[in-house]
Each structure stands twice: as structure tokens, then as C-alpha cells.
């Protein structure tokens, strides 16, 4: 049962996401004044499907909301309702409601989601129906034709007539054998210049192998243009004028096999009605004619949904296999030592190499499956942008690039909240009100750029606004007032250093927390959350020009390449992505600069950290030690270790709950032989070492 529920949740989530995407496009179309009919249909279908599956899985409240939204959308689709900003607001709100309902158990007795309020809102928007002018009467379209039109087709006809778009009748003859492809071809050609309202078998019939169709078109193009585009062998185009009958009545009796029995006017809710059957071979029609149950039953071919835990398990198995491989390698080495077994050793070595290759393929394959494009997350953000901008009466254009960039599913999941917060911040604090912007000589609408790209083993996400920027001086003053830095400390604080202040706990430059950005999370939480994913965040800002936040994340957390280092007889794994270089450590070159140990490396000062001291494990090692230069984002330091033990692919495993609060360690990994190595948390260590030296610096000054 819970499997089914998971299946439902994941499908429902997908539907809600696509719904959200289409709503954004619809919003855009509404602003541009461009045609949005197809989008309205998409949205309608999505909600309809959601209603269907919610019912099947016992999500009654979700079903109820979907049903109410569906009614509203149906009105919109059929022109009984106009697309307004208010209506769009309600639809967007609907997406939020869906998401909150999906997060709840359907059996929960108490719910945080007030669907009653939402339903009331829906009703009040739905109540304001504009009158629909009936321009169709002037055309005197034959009643029997009107009768076979679905309500939707009739609405399209009326809309086009109301807009003054010309109506045409195109007579075509299609062979029965190829009618499907010919129809599709006609639709494709018509798409850019005309809207096909309906097509009916013509009264003139056709011969045994072919059928004549009357296609009812609405187009603003001239007859000549239409003729050019749609014309073909045996095609006859005719413009319908007021007072003429556009399509000859269909005589059902003549075409028993082809034409349905006396057409019945489609009931107002097309979803509950079977698609009006017209011809025996009509898949294209069925597709166009709503949805009903076909959509919910149709599944996307060649795609499976997999629980990420199953992939984790597979990854673990790959890790175990890698250990087996190492063991076989060691055995091979032993065999080599014995001359009489040399040939055997060589064979075994070759087999093991083959095994290794396949193992790598397997590992890459599993990693690939875990990857999802960032687009899903970005879509959700686009909705936030619209909402926040409206609430603040700001105009914001969101520009998204690199949405196809892929990243580990688990990372994506954890990324939504931090990104959402940054976006809210950018609109709330960054982008100015339209009037302010105009005074500053900027366009009234702000631009928010969301950009993602892969850089080696990392994914970089940039959030850039062209707003007011952050004034480092204001940050410093606030920090002094809050006692976060001393005045002396602030005096020689560089511009970049000052900008980093925003990431400190308890720091907010606004006295009154805005209802949007101030929802209990600050930039420090964003930073912590990103750090937990093995990533870092950096900020750049120019007063008056804008702010850019750059997040650097590892592509995956599942399996990583690591440098094994030795400290006090223990091995530790350091993600290779964080390692810049490793050199021999020369204690004589260490200088103490204001409480911290530094070395100069190619002209740059590098803070060093003796891992044995930090971890309070006394190293008895004498002799040569090494300095591993660790860097994440813009931060660098040198870790002093006893030895380098080589590079290895490792599967990171979480420590138990009882050790989750240990700093500087992000997990552990099995090295085989029952040996377990701790995985160092590079961003965490960098933070700890660099900020603690800053603190001792300040304490030293006091």
C-alpha cells in the first residue's frame, strides 16, 4: 500500500510541477496578450488528471480542491470566464495548496491547510463571469453542424467570430489508408496561420478508398495565403461570409460506417462525456478531445520511477565490489611472488582488470541514474519569483539559463529551500521598487538571473540581481552595533570580508524582518545547509549595480574520489574535489601571524591547520610530513598530515545519529579488510579553522 502511495505522490508531484510550469507560461502569455488556449487546455488536463488519481488514492481533500479548480478552468477553457491576473493568482495559489496537501498524510485528522478558505476564494473569483457576446448568430451556421460541435469547439468558433477572425471551409479528400498522417500533416501546416475548429466528413462523401472532409478553419490570413499553405491536390478553400452556411449538413444515413448516430450536444462537462466519436480511425481527434481517463492511464513509456534508497543500496554494493577487487589485486600480487604461479597471476590480473572496467561502468551508470536536471527546482523558483514580486509590487523578469545542468537527486531535494530563500532575498532586499529604479536611471523592471553550469566535478549555481547591491559599510556598522566585530577589527576589514558578514548567525540588516525573507531562516542557515551538501556560497556585490551569489556544489555525494591521508596512525579520506595540491611540509617555513600559523605558498599566505592538534590525537610520527592544500569556493587552507596514502574511490556513509553532531567529519567509508576511514568535511573544516583564527585574532586584540 505504501508503495502505491509513494507512486501516487511521485506522480502527483510531477503533475503539480508541470502544472506550475504551464501556469508560468500562461502568465507570460497573459502579459504578452498572446494566444493561450493550448496552455489553458494543458492546465485543465493536469488538474483533471490530478483529481482522478487523488480520488483513487483516497486523497479526498486534494480531490476536492482539484475538482473546484477544474470547474473554474473549464469555464476559462470555454470562454465563460476571462483570464485575469486575479484568476491567475488563484491558480498559482492552487499549486501551493496542492503541494501542501501532498506533504500531509491523507489520513491526518488535523490539517494545516485551510482548503475551505481557498475554495471560497475560488468561488468568489468564479462568480465574476463576464457576459459572452453571441456573434455566431450572424453567420447562420447550420444547426446540424452546430449540434455536432463540442462545447469547446463551439466556444472557439464564437471566440474567433467575436474577434473578427475570418472563417473558412476547406474541402479535402484523404485516402482512408493514410488519413491519420494526412490529417496530422494538415494540422501541422495550419498551425502557424490558422486554427482548425473542427473537421467533419463531408456530405459529398467520397469513394470506397477515400473520404472527403470539411475542415472548419478560423484564420486572419487571406484566402490566397491559406490556399498556398494548405492547398493541395483536390483541396478547395472557401471563405464563409455572414449569412451563408459554412458546412453542409451531414447526412448520417449516407455514412453509416463513418459517421456516428444522431449527434448529441456534448454536455457542459466534457470530461465526463465520452469524446464524441466521429470516425473509426481517429486517434488524433481523441487526443484533442479532452483527456478523460486516457491521460491518467497512459504512462510514459520507457521510464521507471525508482526510490532513491534502492540506488543507494546499489551504490553500496558497488562499493563492496570495489573492496573485493582490491582484495583480488592483493592476492594477485602474492601469487606473483611465486615463480611457479606466475602465469596464473598474470591471468588473474587480466581478469581483474576487466572486472574493474565493468565495475567502473556500473558505477557511472548508477550515478547517471541519480542525476536530475536542475530545471525542476528552477521551475518552482519561477513561481516564487512571480509571487514575491507581486506581493512587493515590484517588476521582476526571471532569466534562467543552464536548467539542463544535472545534479544528484538528493542534492536537488535539499537545494530548494536555500535557493528559495536567496530568491526571496534578492527580490525583497535587492531589486528596488520601479520608481526608485527609474530615479536611478534603471529600467523599472528588475532582472533576476538564475544560471547553472557544471565545472569539473562541481555544479555552480549563480543568482544575480541588478538591484541596489549591498553596502559593505552598512554591514560593518550593523556588525559593530551587534557586537559581532570590534571597531578595531572592523577598521581593517576588506570589502570582501565585510560582505561575508551576511553569513554570520544573527545578522540581519533590516530591523523589521520582512514577512517574506524573515521566515526564521537567515543567510547563516542557507550557508549551513549548503555546507551540509558539501558546497560553499560566496557573495559579490556592487552598490547600485546588483548582487551575485554563487553556490558551488559537488555533482554527487554518492561516490567520490578521495585522497587518503594519515594522521596519528589513522587514515582519513579527503574529497579530491577539495584538494588543490599536496606538498612536503617544511616546519621551518611556518610563521605566526597574529595567532595563526601560516606559510607562504607561491607568494600567497596560507593558513595552516595541524589536523592532529585540531583532533587532539597526538601524532608520534617523526620525519617528513605533508601539507595538503584544501580549497572550496574562495577559501583555502593547508592541512598538515603525517602521510599520503593514495587516491581511491569511496562510498560515503553517514555516521549514526549519536555522532551526527561531530564537527569536521562528514561520514565514514569502508576501505575493505574491516578498515574504516573517516571522511573529512572539507567545507566544515575550512570554516572552523578560518573563523576560529579570526576569533582568536579579535580576542587577542581586546
Amino acid at each position, binding site marked *: 500500500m505504501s508503495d502505491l502511495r509513494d507512486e501516487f505522490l511521485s506522480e502527483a508531484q510531477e503533475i503539480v510541477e508541470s502544472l506550475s510550469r504551464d501556469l508560468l507560461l500562461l502568465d507570460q502569455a497573459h502579459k504578452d496578450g498572446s494566444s493561450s488556449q493550448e496552455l489553458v487546455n494543458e492546465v485543465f488536463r493536469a488538474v483533471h488528471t490530478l483529481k482522478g488519481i487523488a480520488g483513487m488514492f483516497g486523497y479526498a481533500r486534494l480531490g476536492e480542491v482539484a475538482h473546484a479548480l477544474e470547474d473554474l478552468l473549464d469555464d476559462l477553457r470555454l470562454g465563460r470566464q476571462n483570464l485575469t491576473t486575479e484568476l491567475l493568482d488563484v491558480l498559482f495559489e492552487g499549486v501551493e495548496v496542492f503541494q501542501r496537501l501532498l506533504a500531509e498524510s491523507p489520513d491526518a485528522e488535523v490539517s494545516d491547510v485551510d482548503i475551505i478558505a481557498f475554495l471560497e476564494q475560488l468561488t468568489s473569483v468564479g462568480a465574476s463571469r463576464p457576459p459572452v457576446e453571441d456573434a455566431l448568430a450572424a453567420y447562420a451556421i447550420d444547426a446540424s453542424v452546430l449540434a455536432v460541435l463540442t462545447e469547446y469547439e463551439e466556444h472557439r468558433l464564437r471566440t474567433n467570430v467575436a474577434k473578427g477572425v475570418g472563417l473558412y471551409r476547406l474541402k479535402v479528400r484523404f485516402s482512408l489508408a493514410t488519413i491519420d498522417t494526412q490529417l496530422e500533416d494538415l494540422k501541422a501546416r495550419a498551425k502557424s496561420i490558422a486554427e482548425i475548429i473542427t473537421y467533419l466528413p463531408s456530405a459529398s462523401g467520397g469513394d470506397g478508398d477515400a473520404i472527403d472532409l470539411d475542415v472548419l478553419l478560423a484564420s486572419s490570413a487571406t484566402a490566397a495565403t491559406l490556399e498556398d499553405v494548405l492547398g493541395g491536390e483536390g483541396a478547395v478553400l472557401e471563405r464563409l461570409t455572414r449569412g451563408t452556411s459554412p458546412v453542409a449538413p451531414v447526412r448520417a444515413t449516407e455514412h453509416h460506417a463513418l459517421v456516428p448516430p444522431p449527434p448529441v450536444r456534448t454536455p457542459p462537462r466534457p470530461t465526463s462525456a465520452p469524446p464524441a466519436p466521429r470516425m473509426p480511425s481517429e486517434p488524433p481527434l481523441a487526443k484533442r478531445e479532452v483527456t478523460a481517463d486516457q491521460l491518467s492511464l497512459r504512462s510514459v513509456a520507457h521510464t521507471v520511477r525508482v526510490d532513491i534508497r534502492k540506488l543507494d543500496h546499489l551504490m553500496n554494493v558497488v*562499493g563492496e565490489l570495489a573492496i573485493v577487487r582490491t582484495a583480488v589485486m592483493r592476492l594477485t600480487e602474492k601469487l606473483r611472488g611465486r615463480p611457479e604461479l606466475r602465469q596464473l597471476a598474470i591471468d588473474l590480473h587480466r581478469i581483474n582488470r576487466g572486472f574493474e572496467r565493468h565495475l567502473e561502468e556500473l558505477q557511472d551508470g548508477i550515478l547517471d541514474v541519480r542525476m536530475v536536471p536542475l530545471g525542476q527546482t528552477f521551475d518552482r523558483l519561477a513561481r516564487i519569483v512571480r509571487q514575491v514580486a507581486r506581493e512587493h509590487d515590484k517588476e521582476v523578469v526571471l532569466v534562467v539559463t543552464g536548467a539542463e545542468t544535472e545534479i544528484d537527486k538528493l542534492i536537488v531535494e535539499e537545494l530548494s529551500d536555500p535557493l528559495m530563500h536567496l530568491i526571496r532575498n534578492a527580490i525583497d532586499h535587492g531589486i528596488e521598487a520601479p520608481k526608485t529604479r527609474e530615479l536611478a536611471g534603471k529600467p523599472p523592471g528588475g532582472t533576476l538571473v538564475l544560471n547553472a553550469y557544471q565545472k569539473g566535478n562541481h555544479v555552480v549555481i549563480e543568482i544575480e540581481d541588478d538591484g541596489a547591491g549591498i553596502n559593505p559599510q552598512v554591514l560593518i556598522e550593523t556588525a559593530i552595533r551587534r557586537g559581532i566585530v570590534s571597531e578595531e577589527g572592523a577598521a581593517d576589514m576588506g570589502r570582501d570580508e565585510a560582505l561575508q558578514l551576511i553569513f554570520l548567525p544573527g545578522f540581519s540588516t533590516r530591523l523589521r524582518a520582512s514577512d517574506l525573507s524573515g521566515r526564521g531562516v537567515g543567510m547563516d542557515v542557507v550557508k549551513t545547509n549548503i555546507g551540509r551538501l558539501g558546497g560553499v556560497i560566496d557573495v559579490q556585490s556592487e552598490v547600485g549595480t546588483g548582487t551575485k551569489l554563487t553556490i558551488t556544489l559537488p555533482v554527487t555525494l554518492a561516490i567520490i574520489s578521495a585522497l587518503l591521508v594519515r594522521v596519528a596512525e589513522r587514515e582519513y579520506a579527503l574529497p579530491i574535489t577539495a584538494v588543490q595540491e599536496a606538498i612536503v611540509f617544511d616546519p621551518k617555513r611556518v610563521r605566526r601571524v597574529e595567532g595563526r600559523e601560516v606559510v607562504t605558498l607561491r607568494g600567497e599566505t596560507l593558513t595552516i591547520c595541524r589536523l592532529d592538534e585540531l583532533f587532539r590525537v597526538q601524532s608520534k610520527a617523526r620525519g617528513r610530513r605533508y601539507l595538503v592544500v584544501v580549497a572550496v569556493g574562495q577559501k583555502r587552507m593547508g592541512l598538515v598530515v603525517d602521510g599520503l596514502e593514495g587516491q581511491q574511490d569511496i562510498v560515503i*556513509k553517514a*555516521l*549514526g545519529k*549519536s*555522532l551526527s553532531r*561531530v564537527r569536521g567529519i562528514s561520514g*565514514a567509508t569502508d576501505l575493505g579488510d574491516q578498515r574504516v576511514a573517516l571522511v573529512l568535511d572539507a567545507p566544515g573544516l575550512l570554516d572552523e579553522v578560518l573563523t576560529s583564527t579570526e576569533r582568536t585574532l579579535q580576542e587577542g586584540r581586546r
Partner: protein
Amino acid sequence: MSELVKRPTIVPMRPTGSETRAASLREILAFALADESYGFPLARVREILKLPPITPVPRAPRHVLGIVSVRGVITTVVDLRRLMRVEERPPEKHARILLVDVGGEVLGALVDEVLQVHRLAEDEVELAGVVGGDLSDHVIGVGRPRTRRDQDHAGRELIVLLDPEPLFARLERG
């Protein structure tokens, strides 16, 4: 001791034992720690491990010895001597790690020696409330199993019955 791992899920009943008596039996895994006998409810003990190499974790809570990998799952090992505040001593030949289910996490508990499984009847257990005194909240009571040789109450072995949850909750407090 390895057959403990594959213990049957149904406890074989003695022919003399009545239905009610069987139901009131407490199954205890008894182990030694600094010359005392202690017991965990058997149902909470997942597995008994011979001592694998333990990887110490820097800056971990004081009672944590380190971590081991149990078939790929990283498991925290707790020094029960430290946790029970008895004299510390390096583990010897008979030392074992008990994997104990502590609601939400399986923890390894290092003990000196695993003794045996006892099925204690109602009258062989004195609950903490009856024993009185100020026993810690992790002591359920005291078990006094009968033995064939010795039916005399006074000479029986004494097992301190431990409740894993409050015991390991000390980890949180450091």
C-alpha cells in the same frame, strides 16, 4: 556463542510450563562487565560481534569508542564500562560487541564477556520499584535465575537488568 545470533523466534516451552508462565518469562542476554552480571532484553540484541578493529572518532562524546562497519553499515560503538562508570580496562579475549536496538539507531556496546541467555520467570525478577533505593533510571530491576545445583535464594547469581534507551540516552548528555 554464535548460535545466539540465529536464535529461534519462538521460545521452546518446558513441558511443565503453563501458558501463563511462558508468557511472563523474560528473555535476558546476560553479560559480564567488571565482575558484575548485567542483562539486556534479548529482543533488543540484534547480533553479537567478535571485536573488529574500531576506528576512533575525534571529538566524539566521551563514551564512544569509535565506529565499525557491520556489513557496510557504519555503527557507533560505545564503551559500556565508561558509560556505566566502572573502572576502564582494555578489552580482553572474551570481549564482544552487542548490537543493541535503541529505537532509531543500532548501537554497539562493548562488554567484557557474553554469559548466556536466561528465561526468567516472574518470581525470578525483582523490579526496580520493589528493590527500592535510588537506582538509576536505566535499571529495570534485578534478576535471580534459579540453578539446578543451588535452590537456595541467597546464593543465586544476580543480574542487573538494563533498559537500553535511558542508558544510551546518556550519550546525548556527553
